């Protein structure tokens, strides 16, 4: 809290930080070192601050991700509806483990906590889209619908 006052109406430059990082994530699929340095320069913040924010949130990545990011919910209500089977199915289908990206760069697979779709469990996000009521059968079709 050494730096004084960056508050007021718009909240100062810093308020834009998270949305700028998110924008970079959206455009490039990840937040590269160069991009972090650039954002830091634009906002007049230390690069370490930008790095600190970029590494805190689970929807931001500092390494490249696939064209589509699959986030399968692994929280308890989804587990009660066989989320593990779904995860195994996707792993088999794509040939990758959570945390990995397919060699053609099409998909990254991640596990995530409750996405607020427990009434449709098991559920996952593909990019911004929620898919609920997953079964080993419909999973294949859903994945196919993403190019």
């Amino acid at each position, binding site marked *: 809290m050494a730096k004084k006052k*960056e*508050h*007021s109406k718009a909240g100062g430059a810093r308020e834009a*930080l998270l949305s700028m990082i998110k924008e970079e994530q959206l455009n490039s699929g990840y937040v590269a070192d160069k991009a972090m340095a650039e954002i830091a320069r634009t906002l007049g913040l230390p690069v370490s601050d930008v790095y600190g924010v970029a590494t805190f949130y689970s929807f931001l990545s500092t390494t490249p991700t696939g064209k589509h990011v699959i986030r399968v919910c692994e929280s308890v209500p989804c587990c009660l509806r066989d989320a593990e089977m779904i995860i195994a199915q996707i792993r088999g289908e794509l040939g990758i483990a959570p945390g990995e990206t397919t060699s053609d760069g099409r998909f990254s697979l991640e596990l*995530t906590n409750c996405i607020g779709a427990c*009434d449709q469990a098991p559920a996952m996000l593909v990019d911004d889209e929620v898919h609920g009521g997953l079964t080993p059968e419909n999973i294949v079709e859903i994945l196919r619908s993403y190019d």
Partner: protein
Amino acid sequence: MPENRVLLKKCEAIDPGDVDSYVKAGGFKALKKARDRMSPVEVIEALKASGLRGRGGAGFPCGAKWELARNSREKEKFLICNADEGEVGAFKDRYVLQNDPFSVIEGMAIAAYAVGAQEAYIYLRAEYHFLLEGLKRAVEQVKAKGLLKSLDIKITEGAGAYVCGEESALMNSIEGRRGEARCRPPYPPTRGLFEKPTIINNVETLINVPHIIAKGPEWYAKLGTEKSKGTKLFSVSGDVRQPGVYEMELGCKLGDLLTLARAENVKLVQVGGASGRIVPHSMLDTRLSFETILGSGAITVFNESRDVIDIVSRTMGFFNKESCGKCTPCREGAEVMVEIFGRLVKGDGVHEDLEILEDLSHVMMDASMCGLGQTAPIPVLDTLKYFRSEYENRIDQSAFLRRLKVISA
């Protein structure tokens, strides 16, 4: 007890993409009444008289909170609608935002009028990005009707962090920082967002407000129990035939809610999400209220086939992942819990582990800085209380199997 649909009524009656349908259903009457016929202080008095308590989990009296911010001499004040809904098993705010965004906006406009805020934020979790366009459109439509006057409502999106639902972490996130919790006091109504007085309310809390203003606090205070007024939205999931959002009068029996959702062969229920209390089958008569148990209203049902240790193990994994890491008891405590549960699940547990779990739970609850670490051990302690024999049997079994291995080796 059947459902009592007060808050959900509009969700079914209106077109969330059309402000006029909301107006036709009686929308914005409360806002007009507040602005034209009540002073801000009168609005706050009405809220206090209604007995409305926050629906985000902690149950803090809403009117009293507003009054704190109202009384601050700072000119600039903020209002935040907490739409981060990260609690495991919770989806009622999603349902409201999707089907009746206008009630949320009306509630915010009344709140802003009462506390004197010129700027408001809706903090929407990244997982709910699919709601963003609808929400934006709703805000635009209300604005176009001139109903927001000078109030500016911004929508800020999170980026994937459960802890950002915690109010101080949420403010850090809006300010463009890591979403770590802050030391308190000062509390947000005195010093919050950008160091200004700030009111943070849950989505559901805010949609209660128009009803209270329109129909009066006396009407509202007739619903519920002595210390828990009104109705409550419950997100019911897990081993039930009809998962979904249910609205019940506060003080309803847990069992009644389970009947509506068609739960079968119930072994236990967790009330309030990952850090919620555990209710064994023998206690389904328990009433749901702030006096007893409630939390955010996430109800997760487990049937006879479920393994208690497995459930708690996964839950601790959740907290370990979501701990912001700022304070030691939570960061390290969650890690150790995961390690111990890992051993219990694998069959390497020993009886001393149970004592360590209990001691560690108390340290985390006493010494953690925010609600995450303070409440994470609840399912551990509750299951040790109600299902201790399952832990002990598992450990005995593991010891037996180990001996067998030694003999056969």
